[in-house]
C-alpha cells in the first residue's frame, strides 16, 4: 500500500555531510553533553510538577467544559467517520481515508500533538467519551466501576494494546485493509469498554494504549498542569521530570523504541512471514528492554541501590521521541494531507514528498541526536538527585554508554532505512 507503509524515509545518503560525520558527530554530541552536565550541572535543577509560569489563556480554553466537550465530540465524530469509512468504503487505501487517519493522524499525529500540547488523548479519547455518555445515560455510578484497577497492573494493559497496534502496522499481512482496521478497532473498543465498565473511567488512565502513548510523549511538552492545577508553560525537561514510575512503563517506552528500530530493519513486508515478523518484533522489544534493564542493573551495582530502572525510564522518552520524529515526520505530513484530501473528495495529491531529501536527512539526524542529549540531561539530573554524591557521575556511565551506542546504531540505520 505504497507510501503509508514506506516510512523510514529520507535515507542517510541524502545527508549533506558524510554518514561518518553524522554518526561520529552524533555520538560525540551525546558524550560531550554527558561530560558537560557532569561538570557543570552539579545539583538537581529540575522542579517537575512545581515548575512553570501560568498560561492563563491556555488554561481558560482548556478548562472550559464547553470547549472540552466540543473537542470530545469532534474527535468522537472523526472516529465514527473513520469506522464508517472502513466499514462501507472501498478496500483500497488509495481511495479510502481510514488507513491514513489511523496510521497518519492517530499513530503519528497523536504523539506530535502530545509533544506540543501534553497528553491530549486523555481529553479527547472517544472511548472515554462513549463510556462517560453511557454512564450518564444510565444515571448510576457506573463511571466509578465495580473495582479499582489493581496497582500491579499499571501500564501493562496499555503495553499490550500498543504491541497489538504495532504488530498490526508492522507485521500483519495487510495492515491497510479495511478488514484489518475494523477487526482491530472493534476488538480494541470492545476490550476497553468492557474493562472500563468493570474498573470505571480510571481504567483509561493507564489501560488505554493511546492514552499511554499520548501520556508518554506529552511528558515532553512545553505545556502542562502544575501540581496546584494551574496550566503552565515550562521547560520540557520539567515536564519530563513529572513522569511517575509505574509497573509496565518501562515496557511501553521500550516497545516504542524497539518498534521504530524494527521498522527500519524491515522495510518490505514481503521479506518475512508473519511468524518471523512477530518473532522479530518480540526480539527487538526484548533486546531493547534487556539493554535498558541491564544498564540500570549495572548502574544500581555501581551506586549500591537495588533497582534504579524505574527512576530513569523517563530519560528514554526523548530518545523515543527523537526516533519517532526521525522516522515518521514525513509520513505525518503526507498521510494527513492524503487523508484530508480523500475525506473532502479531492483527487489524489501530486506525487513526491514536499520535503527536500537533504532537509529530511538533517531533521532526522538532529531529532535523534537531540533526543539523546535530552535523555542524558534528564538522566543526569535524576542521578544527582537520587545517588550519593560520590557515585552520582559513575552511576550514569552505563546509561551514557548505552545512549552513545544507540545513537550510533540509530544514525547508521538511517543509512539503510
Amino acid at each position: 500500500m505504497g507510501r503509508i507503509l514506506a516510512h523510514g524515509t529520507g535515507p542517510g545518503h541524502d545527508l549533506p555531510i558524510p554518514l561518518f560525520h553524522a554518526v561520529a558527530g552524533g555520538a560525540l554530541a551525546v558524550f560531550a553533553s554527558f561530560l558537560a552536565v557532569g561538570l557543570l550541572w552539579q545539583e538537581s535543577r529540575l522542579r517537575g510538577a512545581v515548575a512553570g509560569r501560568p498560561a492563563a489563556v491556555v488554561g481558560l480554553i482548556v478548562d472550559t467544559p464547553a470547549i472540552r466537550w466540543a473537542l470530545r465530540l469532534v474527535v468522537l465524530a472523526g472516529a465514527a467517520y473513520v469506522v464508517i469509512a472502513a466499514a462501507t468504503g472501498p478496500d483500497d487505501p488509495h481511495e479510502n481515508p481510514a488507513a491514513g487517519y489511523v496510521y497518519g493522524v492517530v499513530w503519528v499525529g497523536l504523539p506530535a500533538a502530545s509533544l506540543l500540547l501534553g497528553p491530549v488523548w486523555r481529553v479527547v479519547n472517544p472511548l472515554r467519551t462513549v463510556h462517560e455518555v453511557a454512564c450518564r445515560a444510565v444515571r448510576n455510578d457506573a463511571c466509578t466501576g465495580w473495582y479499582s484497577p489493581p496497582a500491579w497492573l499499571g501500564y501493562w494493559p496499555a503495553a499490550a494494546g500498543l504491541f497489538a497496534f504495532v504488530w498490526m502496522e508492522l507485521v500483519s499481512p495487510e495492515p491497510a485493509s479495511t478488514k484489518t482496521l475494523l477487526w482491530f478497532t472493534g476488538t480494541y473498543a470492545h476490550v476497553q469498554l468492557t474493562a472500563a465498565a468493570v474498573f470505571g473511567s480510571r481504567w483509561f488512565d493507564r489501560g488505554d494504549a493511546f492514552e499511554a502513548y499520548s501520556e508518554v510523549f506529552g511528558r515532553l511538552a512545553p505545556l502542562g498542569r502544575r501540581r496546584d492545577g494551574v496550566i503552565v508553560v515550562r521547560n520540557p525537561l520539567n515536564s519530563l521530570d513529572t513522569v511517575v514510575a509505574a509497573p509496565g512503563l518501562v515496557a511501553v517506552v521500550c516497545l516504542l523504541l524497539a518498534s521504530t528500530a524494527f521498522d527500519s530493519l524491515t522495510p518490505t513486508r514481503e521479506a518475512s512471514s508473519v511468524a518471523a515478523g512477530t518473532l522479530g518484533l518480540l526480539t527487538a522489544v526484548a533486546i531493547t528492554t534487556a539493554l535498558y534493564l541491564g544498564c540500570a542493573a549495572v548502574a544500581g551495582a555501581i551506586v549500591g541501590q537495588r533497582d534504579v530502572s524505574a527512576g530513569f525510564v523517563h530519560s528514554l522518552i526523548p530518545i523515543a521521541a527523537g526516533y519517532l520524529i526521525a522516522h515518521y515526520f514525513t509520513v505525518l505530513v503526507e498521510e494527513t494531507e492524503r487523508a484530508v484530501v480523500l475525506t473532502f473528495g479531492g483527487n489524489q495529491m501530486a506525487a513526491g514528498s514536499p520535503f527536500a531529501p537533504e532537509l529530511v536527512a538533517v531533521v532526522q539526524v538532529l531529532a535523534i541526536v537531540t533526543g539523546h542529549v535530552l535523555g542524558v540531561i534528564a538522566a543526569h539530573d535524576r542521578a544527582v538527585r537520587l545517588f550519593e554524591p560520590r557515585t552520582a557521575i559513575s552511576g550514569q556511565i552505563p546509561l551514557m554508554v548505552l545512549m552513545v551506542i544507540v545513537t550510533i546504531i540509530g544514525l547508521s540505520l538511517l543509512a539503510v532505512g
Partner: protein
Amino acid sequence: MVHLRRVGVAVVVVATLSILAAPTAAAHADREVVLPDGTGSVPAYRTADEAADVLLVCGADETDFERRVADFPPDLRRRNLELFADCQASGFATLQEAVDAVTQPGTNIYLLPGEYLEQPSRPEPVGECAELDRPWYDGGHYRYQILEFDDQIACPTNQNLVAILGIRDLQIEGTGAGPGDVVLDAGYTKLNALRADRADGIYLKNFTAQRTTFNAVYIIETQGFVIDQMVGRWNDEYGFLTFAVDHGLYTDCEAYGNGDSGVYPGSASDINKDRGYDVDRYSVEITGCYSHHNLLGYSGTAGDSVWAHGNDFSNNTVGLAMDSLFPDHPGLPQNHSKFEDNLIYDNNEDYYRYVRDGTCGLPSADRGYESGVVCPAIGVPPGTGLLTAGGNYNVFRDNWVYGNDYAGFLLLHPPAFVRGEMGLTTQWDTSHHNTYIGNRFGVTPDGETRPNRLDVWWDGQGTRNCWQSDTGDSVPLRLPACGAEVGEFSGPQTSRLFAEPATLASLYVCSEYSLNELSIPSGCEWLGASGLGRLDVQLTLASSVLVGIVGLLVWWRRVRHSRPAGIATTVGVAGLVLNVIAVPQWHTVLPAVALALIGGWLVALGIAVRRAGHGAFGWLTVAFGALALIHAVDKAVVLLPWTPLSPAWFRLLVGAVWVVWGLVVAAPSRRVVPDAAAEPAPAAA
C-alpha cells in the same frame, strides 16, 4: 533475505568504519566467467603469406582513401593502393561483415586506412534481441544487461560495434603507417568497440578503437592474445580490458582519455595463487605501452600474475592501481604481479574537477573526452604513482618513480567484505608479502631531480610487506625494510590487522565517492580536503580536546598544588596542540614528538594523582601515558613488531575509559535535593 543484508550493512557501518572503494561501483560487470586452463600460448604475428585466409575491409571512397595514404612511405602507400583495389573487388565495407565471413582458424583481416563507424551495428536492438530476459546492471547514467555467451551469439551487436565470438586464431591488422590511420569508432553507441569473446589466439595490430560507453577493446575468456601497436582512447571506462585470460601480451600500445583505466588486465589467470615468492611464468605480459591522461594508467582488479615492464605510466590521476575491491572477479585477492623498469611519473591529473563542475553529469558524447575531459569512475588519490588496494606477493622493482604529487607507492588493505565475501577468515587475506626494491625515487632517467611528495604511503596493515631502505619521505615514517632480493628482509617485520583508527575512518569516508551521484565526500584528503576539513585532523582535534579537558580538570581539581604536575600539564597541552597541527606532517617526527609530550604529561599526572589518593585512576593515567610513549616510538623509531594492532588502537580503548573515569574523578560532588520535585505529579492537561 533483505533484512539480514540490512542488518549486516548496519553492523558493518557501525562496527568497522572500513574502507576504500565505492561498493556501488563494480569495476566491471559481465557474465560469470571461467579462467582458462592454461594450455594455450601467446599467438605469433602472421604475414599474409602465412595466413590460412585473407579478408580485406575498406571504405568505398577512393579519393578519401588516396588522401589518407598520400603521406605514407612509398612502399607502404603502394601496398595500400593495391589492397584497396583488391578490396573494392572482393572486400568488405565493415569489419563485422569480414568477421562474419571467417571460415577457418588462422585468417588475417586487413583494415585499410579509414574511419570505420560500422553503421549496420549501430541501431538499437529490435525484436527478440530487444527483449532478452537477463538481469540489468545499473551503472547510474547508463545500464546494460548481463548477457550470456549464447546471447552474444544471438545478438552480437546489442552491446558491441564489432563482435568476435568463438573464432580461433584470428588476426586483425590495420594497414596504415600507424594506429591512427585506422579508426574503429563506436560514437558512444555501444559498450564495446570490439569484443573478442572465447577467441583464443586473437591478434590485434595497428589500429585505434575509441569512444565507447565501456571499453574500446574487450577480450574475455580467451587463451592467447596479443594487443600490438593499438590505441584505445576516450571511453567511459577502459581502453583495453582483458578479462579471464591467459597467455596474453600487450605490446607498444597507447591508451588515453579513459574514465577508469588505460589498460586493465583484470582477472588474469590466477596461475601462481599457491606459490610464495617464486614464480614460473606470468599469464599476461605488458611492455612498451604508453598509458597517459586516464584516471588510472593501469588497473588490475584481480590482475593476477601480470608482468608489466618497460612501460610509461604518466600524467594520469594514478599511474597504476591493482586491487581486491570488487566482487565477481575470479582470482581474488589479487596476487603475484611484477612491475619492473617502468616509468611512473607526474601522475597528478585531478579529473575530479569535471565532477565538481558538472561536466560528468552530461551524456558521454557531450562531455568532451576528445578535448581532455576524463570522468573518474572511482575515487582514488590524485598524485599517486602506484596504488595497491589489496594484493599479495607483488613485486615492484627497478621502476623510475618521480614527480607524483601525493605518493610514489601507496598500499592499503580492504577487508574482504568490501568485495562481498563475508567469511571471517578471508577478511584479512590481502595486502601481504609485497616487495618494493631497487626503485629509483624522485629522479628521472636523465638524472634530473623530480621528487615525489611522499615516496611511500602505507596504511600499516598486512604481513611482511617491505620497502627498500633508501625510501625517502614515507607514511609511516619508519617502514619495514626489505633485503637485497625478493623474499629477503632486513630488520623487524610487522603483521597488523588494521590501519590506525583515524586512517581507517579517512579511508571509509574517501570510499563514499560516487560518479553517478556526482558526489565527492568532504573530509577525504585525497579528494581535496585540507586543514580542518580533513577527517583525520578533525578526529585528532576532537580526541585532543577531550583528553585536554579531562586532563586539565583532573589536574585542577586534584593535583594543582603539585608543581611537577603543573609543569607536566603545560607540556601536555603543548603536545595536544602539536598533535593536531602535526597530522598533515605524518612523514616527519612531529607527531611522535607530540605523542611523547602527551605521554610524559600523562605519566607525571598519573603519578601525582595516585599520590593524591586516586590510586586506580592514577595507574590508568600512567598506562594511558605509557601507551602514548610507545606509540611515539612506533611512529618515529621503529614500527613495533609482535603486535597485531597499532598502539593507536590500545590508546583509543584505554582513552575511552580514561576520559569517563577522569570525569568521575574530576567532577564536583555537591548537591541539593529539592523537596518538591521528587513527589509524584498529577496528570496534566
